[in-house]
């Protein structure tokens, strides 16, 4: 990656602050439409939370985000990411292991999963048909909204009214009964929603898992049901629901985006931390780096979360008081941790039959919704879950390029882990204790797991904040709760990617439609920038 002021081009059109995947997506779209764009990244490497890093010998860790599923296919196509080296390898299964041995295998294929569910409950196997039909229906309803700028319901502008009408039309198009179903789906708790379909605890627990990842809510909290969509929203080559690994780790996505960006004339400067966004006469004039260097451009697009952008890199006097108050009230709570583990070999999981594809996908050990809810209660009390929900994968089985021969890499996502502990700040001892909690949780299901561990990187929300810059280590740059979605994201009245200061834009996951390595906020923000430019001319 090119480094150094030397290569900072003159008369820039736009500066993107932060080379996370959304920053890069926005930068690509702007560069492709002919703008002169500079991307500034604080770290010596690009990618933000979509990175591949070598932290131990020749092992490559996807040490933040770890699976590829939400990246919008239209973005992959438009930015020609495959041409720039992105290769996504789908994985076809996963499993949830049970406390008393036994497991629920999970297959991408509906009928295969249906047969597996029938092993646990015939009734649930039938309910599963109803369930996936209903959830996919909700997916189809919401999908078109992802790549659109949310309307402002308080505005009378033609565009907003048109969008609202559009939304109303789509909603009305569902028909009366579906409208009621939709109303309930978007406001229910995952636990209540699943109770309406299934009886088997393991089946409910398996589905509920995706509803709590990254959120500071439990499966019984209203508004968690819709997060179940994530399981179905995943979209590789348009096969609904498929998930996969980026060959070479999640960094491969950022690398491809970076290459695509530079190929269309853009410049990236890494190790260039932005200290301030400069405002002159009420509009953006550029940025000042930590070392004092000033770089000027009429457009500044921030990939940082809104707290960082407006409370830490901008001057409150340049912003409306109400806006600042709202940004302070925006909820960004850390609730997830991560372990990246280098393994001397493939761990055994007695619960899973030899040669089953289940170990090649995402593995879980939480077999009741109550366990998840109790894990959440721990978070509320300001401690990490004593029996955490974990989402564990061994990508090296599918992508050997990540590890030396015969070795393996395991990625373990952990829910819940607080940013602030009730008993004082994080320290090395507490971090280790947290890591041990997770490792022991896994070891209970894999007898030889512990002796295979060569190295483990333990990341608390506090670490994630300090390294990636995500406030409180919240992986979505702000909670995905009812009050922070659509026209409320990040704050009411400013959900259209435009900051209150002319020339300043937001393109991070703090904006609609939120987090996950999706790229939609970046693409939508770029569209907003370009439409404003067109108006100007």
């Amino acid at each position: 990656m090119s480094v150094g002021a030397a290569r900072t081009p003159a008369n820039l059109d736009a500066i993107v602050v932060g080379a996370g995947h959304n920053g890069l997506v926005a930068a690509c779209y702007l560069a492709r439409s002919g703008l002169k764009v500079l991307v500034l990244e604080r770290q010596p490497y690009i990618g933000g939370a979509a990175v591949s890093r070598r932290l131990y010998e020749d092992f490559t860790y996807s040490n933040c985000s770890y699976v590829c599923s939400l990246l919008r296919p239209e973005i992959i196509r438009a930015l020609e990411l495959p041409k720039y080296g992105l290769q996504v390898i789908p994985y076809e299964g996963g499993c949830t292991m049970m406390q008393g041995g036994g497991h629920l295998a999970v297959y991408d294929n509906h009928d295969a999963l249906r047969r597996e569910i029938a092993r646990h409950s015939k009734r649930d196997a039938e309910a599963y048909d109803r369930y996936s039909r209903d959830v996919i229906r909700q997916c189809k309803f919401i999908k078109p909204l992802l790549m659109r700028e949310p309307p402002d319901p308080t505005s009378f502008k033609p565009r907003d009214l048109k969008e609202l009408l559009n939304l109303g039309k789509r909603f009305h198009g569902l028909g009366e009964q579906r409208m009621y179903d939709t109303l309930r789906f978007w406001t229910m708790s995952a636990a209540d929603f699943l109770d309406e379909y299934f009886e088997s605890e393991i089946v409910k627990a398996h589905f509920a898992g995706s509803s709590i990842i990254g959120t500071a809510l439990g499966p019984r909290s209203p508004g968690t049901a819709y997060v179940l969509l994530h399981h179905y929203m995943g979209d590789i080559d348009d096969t609904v629901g498929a998930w996969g690994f980026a060959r070479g780790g999640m960094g491969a996505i950022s690398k491809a985006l970076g290459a695509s960006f530079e190929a269309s004339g853009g410049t990236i400067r890494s190790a260039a931390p932005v200290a301030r966004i400069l405002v002159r006469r009420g509009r953006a004039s550029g940025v000042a780096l930590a070392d004092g260097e000033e770089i000027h451009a009429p457009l500044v697009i921030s990939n940082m979360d809104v707290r960082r952008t407006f409370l830490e890199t901008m001057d409150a006097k340049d912003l409306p008081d109400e806006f600042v108050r709202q940004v302070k009230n925006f909820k960004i709570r850390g609730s997830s941790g991560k372990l990246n583990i280098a393994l001397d070999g493939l761990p055994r999981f007695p619960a899973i039959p030899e040669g089953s594809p289940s170990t090649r996908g995402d593995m879980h050990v939480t077999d009741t919704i109550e366990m998840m809810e109790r894990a959440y209660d721990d978070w509320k009390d300001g401690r990490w879950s004593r029996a955490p929900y974990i989402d564990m994968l061994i990508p090296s089985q599918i992508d050997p390029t990540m590890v030396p021969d015969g070795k393996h890499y395991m990625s373990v996502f952990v829910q819940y882990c607080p940013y602030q502990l009730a008993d004082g700040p994080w320290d090395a001892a507490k971090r280790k204790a947290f890591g041990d909690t997770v490792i022991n949780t896994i070891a209970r299901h894999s007898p030889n797991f512990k002796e295979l561990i060569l190295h483990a990187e333990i990341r608390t929300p506090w670490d994630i904040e300090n390294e990636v810059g995500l406030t409180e280590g919240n992986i979505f740059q702000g909670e995905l709760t009812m009050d922070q979605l659509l026209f409320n994201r990040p704050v009411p009245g400013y959900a259209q990617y435009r900051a209150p200061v002319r020339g300043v834009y937001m393109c991070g996951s703090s904006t609609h439609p939120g987090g996950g390595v999706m790229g939609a906020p970046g693409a939508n923000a770029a569209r907003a920038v370009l439409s404003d430019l067109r108006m100007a001319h």
Partner: protein
Amino acid sequence: MTVSAITHRYDCVVIGAGHNGLVCAEALARAGRSVLVVEAGNQVGGAASTREFAPGFRVSAGAHLAHLMPAGLLRELQLESHGLKWAARGMGTTALVPGGANLSLGHEGAVLGLSAADAQAYAAFRTRMRRFAAALAPALSRVPPRLGTSDWGDRLALLRIGWEIRRLGRRDMRELLRIGGMNVYDLLEENFESAVLKGALGFDAVLGANFGPRSPGTVLTLLYRLAGESAAGDSGLSQPAGGMGALCNALAKAANAAGATVRTGATVATILVDGDRAAGVVLQSGESISARTVVSSADPKTTFLRLLGARHLDAGFVRRVSHIRSRGLAAKLHLALNRAPSFNGASEASLRGRLLISPSLQHIELAYNHVKYGEFSSAPVMEVTVPTCNDPTLAPPGQHVLSAIVQYAPYEIEEGWQSGRRRFMETALETLETYAPGLRSSVVGQELSTPADMEQEFRNAGGHWHHGDLAFDQFLMVRPVPGAAQYRTPMGGLFLCGAGCHPGGGVMGVAGRNAARQVLTRDPESA
């Protein structure tokens, strides 16, 4: 059961003489229908009744404060002329602290014991929330519209809701749309410092709800309560003379005066169906009563699954009904005291209002955690009233009654209420003792009724005083279930008028009134 020959014939038969059933019956009778109300209990009132719980001591068996019945409805019914007297109106609230540094919130919004910052924030918060409440109040009192119909009435109703929210102006509308889906914990944390104030305000959001303050949707439940009070003309917390039962006695008199007949001790066994219409009811005695219209104030599960029977309904509808979440979480504690209780730092006057034991949001949340795992709260929160301070007639001279709503007490607990009741009673008494030292020594009679007990006493499935959780997914046009949200049901001639319908429980009477209007306008065959 042998069905004897039909003995009576009415235009309308109303199942249940709770406040909603009586309000509905009065309206139907006033419109000229011949109306019979059949009540299983031996007195009217249902969960809004007064009864003796210890020799010489009487108490409101369920709800113990009135604050939600619309002023218009009260006037319409002329309950005063039918004998209703108020022992107290506009009662204040005192948030108790073990040490006695209590917080008193006056009905008019005055608060004693707050920091300057909080006092200012509270005034602003109260004004704003009342503005929101006023905007939502009309939607709360009207029949909820159906979605996606070509009926202009429905479309108009939806537009009206939208318009009332828009009329708030951009800034307020944005704020309402933001906080509407929030949890009350975050909202209060955004606004206040004082833990006691937050605890007290948070309590009203979870009172009778299957929620803790951190559950999203608790701002909605708070707004629901405030909107109800707004529709009630903000007369505030009131206590009828003679307990809540007196209110329903007055309602029964009003219904009689309008020409309706009320029969107590008459338990409905089934709803008669003739072809595709409800045709009356059969009592457990075997007596059958025919009517053109049957209006049930029983909860939806009881009405559809027990009294009507699933075989008369389509599978999808039955599934929706069986999924209604209707398990109560509030217990009622009744104490007979041989002297006036004295709570730390609580004045004589504050005993005439309501006392809250809800010292902080964290405290409520921890109390709620237990519910999720089938346990009762080890440190419960309470709404305490001492009705005898305003109405000595409820107890022998010089003695007192303490009536408290105690949360959380799930409908079912792991260990079973058999042994659980004694332990929960002990927990509740211990909690009270810390706020009112010496109270226990003055107890001469005690009663704890859990949701399971209330189910027995009031015959509402789950013992839930709202006949179903108040939550986004059981609200407005999806309450109790789509297809019955406008008080009509898929069964011709069968209507709902209970708390299971919009706008829900709390002694409000709106469901009863709306149901009557629907019967009169939407069921030509009812007369």
